[in-house]
C-alpha cells in the first residue's frame, strides 16, 4: 500500500496510464474508447469501440470474430451424428438446447419422429439447460451493475442443475446426447425424484435473486428506462427470446411454433414486459426461469414409458431436401437451416444463432447512452460469444 503522498501520486499516475491504454484515438471532436476484446463486461472476446462526446456515446460498434470457428464450413465435412459434437459448443451454457434444433431438422428431412419418451426427456433436458444458462445471467447482470454477491449464488445453485444433466448425459457442458430418432440413454434410477428436489432449490434461488437484485435501488436506477427497445425495432433487427418479450412482443416459439417438443402437454405461461428496458429483460428472464421450473415439474410427473429410439438406419443418409427448425433456446431463437442432397453429410448448414441477431442491435441501441450504461445494456441483452461468432 502506498503510504506517503508521493507514493500515492505515483500509484494514481500508474492507474491513469493503465486507463489510457484503452483509449485509442483522441481527437478534438471527441475520443474513441476501446472496450475489450478482453473486458470483464463482455463475457469473452467481444470488442466494443465507442466514439464518445464527453460521457455520451456518439457511435458504438461491436467488433467480433475473435472466436469464429467456422462451424458452417465444418459441418459440410461431418456426418449428421458428428455434427452435434460441434454445435453444442455454440452456446456453451445451455449446450443441450443447441443440439435439439439440428436433430429435429434432420428428423424432419428423414421423416422420422422420436418416440414420446424421448421427446419428453428432450424437453426436460432442454428446460434444464435453460435454467443452467439463465441462472448465470441473473447473477452476472447484477455484477455488471456493481453487485458481486449474486453471481456466487448463481454459480453455486447452477451446479445442482449441471449435476442432474451430467447424471443423464455424462457431460456437464457438452452432453452430445441427442440422436437422430431419439436420445442416447434412458434416465438413470432415481433421477426424476432428485431433479424434483433440484427444481425446488432453483425456485428458492429465483426468490433469492428477486429479493437480492430486483428490488435493489441501485439496480433499478441502473436499469429502469435504460436501453429501451421499441417492439417494431426489436422485430426488424431480429431480436428473439427474452429480449423480444421484454419489449412487449408476445412471441414464444415454444408456444407458437413448437416443433418436436412436448410443450403442448403442460400448462405454462409466456411472460412479457411492456417497458423494453434493461430491467424488463432481466425481469422476463427471471420469470422464465420460474416457468421452466414449472414446466419441468409437470413433465417429470408424466414421462411416458416406452422406447427412447425410433428405428433409424445405422448409417444415416438424409434424403434430399431443405428444412429449417428453430427452437426457443435460452438466448432466443436458434435455428438450423439444413440443406441435404441425400448424402452422409449436410450440403449446407446455416446456423441462425440468437446472440448474433440480438447483439446486432447494439450500434443502434448504444447511440446516445452514457459510458457506464454500455455495460448494463450489453449485459441485459445477454449474449454468449460462441453464439455470436459460431
Amino acid at each position, binding site marked *: 500500500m502506498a503510504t506517503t503522498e508521493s507514493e500515492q501520486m505515483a500509484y494514481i499516475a500508474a492507474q491513469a496510464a493503465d486507463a489510457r491504454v484503452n483509449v485509442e484515438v483522441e481527437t478534438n471532436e471527441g475520443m474513441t474508447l476501446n472496450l475489450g476484446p478482453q473486458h470483464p463486461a463482455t463475457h469473452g472476446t467481444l470488442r466494443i469501440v465507442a466514439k464518445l462526446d464527453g460521457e455520451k456515446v456518439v457511435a458504438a460498434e461491436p467488433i*467480433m*470474430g475473435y472466436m469464429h470457428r467456422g462451424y*458452417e464450413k465444418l459441418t459440410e465435412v461431418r456426418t449428421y451424428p458428428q455434427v452435434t459434437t460441434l454445435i453444442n459448443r455454440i452456446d456453451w451454457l445451455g449446450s443441450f438446447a443447441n443440439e435439439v434444433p439440428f436433430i429435429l431438422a434432420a428428423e424432419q428431412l428423414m421423416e422420422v419422429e422420436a418416440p414420446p419418451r424421448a421427446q419428453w426427456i428432450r424437453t426436460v433436458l432442454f428446460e434444464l439447460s435453460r435454467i443452467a444458462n439463465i441462472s448465470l445471467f441473473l447473477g452476472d447482470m447484477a455484477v455488471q451493475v456493481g453487485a458481486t454477491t449474486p453471481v456466487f449464488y448463481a454459480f453455486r445453485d447452477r451446479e445442482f442443475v449441471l449435476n442432474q444433466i451430467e447424471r443423464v448425459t455424462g457431460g456437464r457442458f457438452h452432453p452430445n446426447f441427442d440422436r437422430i430418432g431419439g436420445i442416447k440413454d434412458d434416465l438413470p434410477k432415481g433421477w426424476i425424484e432428485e431433479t424434483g428436489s433440484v427444481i425446488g432449490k432453483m425456485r428458492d434461488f429465483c426468490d433469492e435473486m428477486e429479493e437480492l437484485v430486483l428490488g435493489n435501488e441501485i439496480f433499478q436506477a441502473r436499469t429502469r428506462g435504460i436501453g429501451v427497445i421499441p417492439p417494431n*425495432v426489436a*422485430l*426488424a433487427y431480429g431480436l428473439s427470446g427474452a429480449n423480444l418479450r421484454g419489449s412487449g412482443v408476445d*412471441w414464444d416459439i415454444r408456444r407458437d411454433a413448437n416443433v418436436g417438443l412436448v410443450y403442448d402437454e403442460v400448462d405454462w405461461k409466456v411472460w412479457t414486459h411492456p417497458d423494453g428496458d434493461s430491467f424488463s429483460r432481466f425481469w422476463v428472464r427471471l420469470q422464465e426461469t420460474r416457468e421452466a421450473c414449472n414446466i419441468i415439474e409437470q413433465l417429470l410427473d408424466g414421462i411416458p414409458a416406452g422406447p427412447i429410439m425410433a*428405428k433409424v438406419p445405422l*448409417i444415416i443418409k438424409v434424403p434430399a431436401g431443405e428444412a429449417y427448425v428453430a427452437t426457443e433456446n435460452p438466448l432466443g431463437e436458434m435455428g438450423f437451416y439444413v440443406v441435404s*442432397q441425400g448424402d452422409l453429410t449436410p450440403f449446407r448448414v446455416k446456423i441462425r444463432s440468437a446472440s448474433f441477431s440480438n447483439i446486432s442491435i447494439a450500434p443502434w441501441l448504444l447511440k446516445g447512452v452514457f459510458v457506464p450504461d454500455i455495460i448494463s445494456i450489453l449485459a441485459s441483452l445477454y449474449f454468449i460469444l460462441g453464439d455470436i461468432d459460431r
Partner: protein
Amino acid sequence: MAEIPDHLLKRAQAAREKAEAQQQAEPEDSASPEKNDEAEATEEEIVVTDEHAEAALTVLERELDGKLLNSHIAPMRGLWIRVAIEDWRFAAKVAKEDLDCKFFDWLSAIDWMPSPYGREHETEQDKLNEEPEDNDQKEMEWGYTGGETRFQLICRVYSISRKIGVMIKADLPDNDPRALSLIPIYPGANWHEREAREMFGLTFDEHPDLRNIYLPGDFEGHPLRKDYPLLSRRMKPWPGIVDMELLPGDDQ
C-alpha cells in the same frame, strides 16, 4: 500417415459387414407383423395441407404479380418462394407490408456447386467405407424451388400474426453476384449481409458498411464457397480408425 495394422482393418471390415447384414435384415423383421397396418395406412393416404402457408402463398402470388418464379410448400414446415434478383428487395417489401412479416429472421447464401474436394475424407477408414467420390462429374442440383445459377441468396422472414415463415430465394448472376441491400426494409439485415459478403464474395448495393465481420481484414478468399478448401483437413488427416486402441486379446 501412420500405417494401420491389418487386424484393425479386418475388424472394421467385419463390423461393417455385420452392420450391413443387420440393416438388410431389419426391415424384413419389422415389416411382417405390421404389414396389415401399413397397407391400411397407405390406402387412406393422408394428404397433409398447410392452410397458413397456402393463404400466405395466395397473398404473395397476388402481390408479386408474375414476379414469383417458383414456390414450394412443405406442409407444416414452411413456405419457399423464388424471385428474380431484380425483385429481391421488392419481394421483401411485399412480405413485410402485405404478409405482415415484421420479424427479420436471417439472411444467407448457398453455393450450389458440388464441392470439388468431396467430403475431405482422406483416411483409410473412409476409403474402406465407399468408393472415393468423383465430384467433377456431378452436376449442380438445386433444392426446393429450383435454381439457375451457382449462388442463391436466401432470406427468412416471419409473420407473427399469421404464424408463417417465408423463405425468399433469388439467383445471383454468376459473373457479378450482387443484390440490393435489404437494410431499408429490415435494418437487421446489416450484419447478415456483411457475413454473406465475406463468406461467399457477394456484393450488396446500397449497403453502408461492407467490411468483414468475422474474418481478419486481409483474409483472402471466401470460406463458405465450395471451392475453398478446408485447410485444417489438409494439414492433419481426420482421425478415424488410427485412433483406435488395441483391446486386450486383439494382438493374438
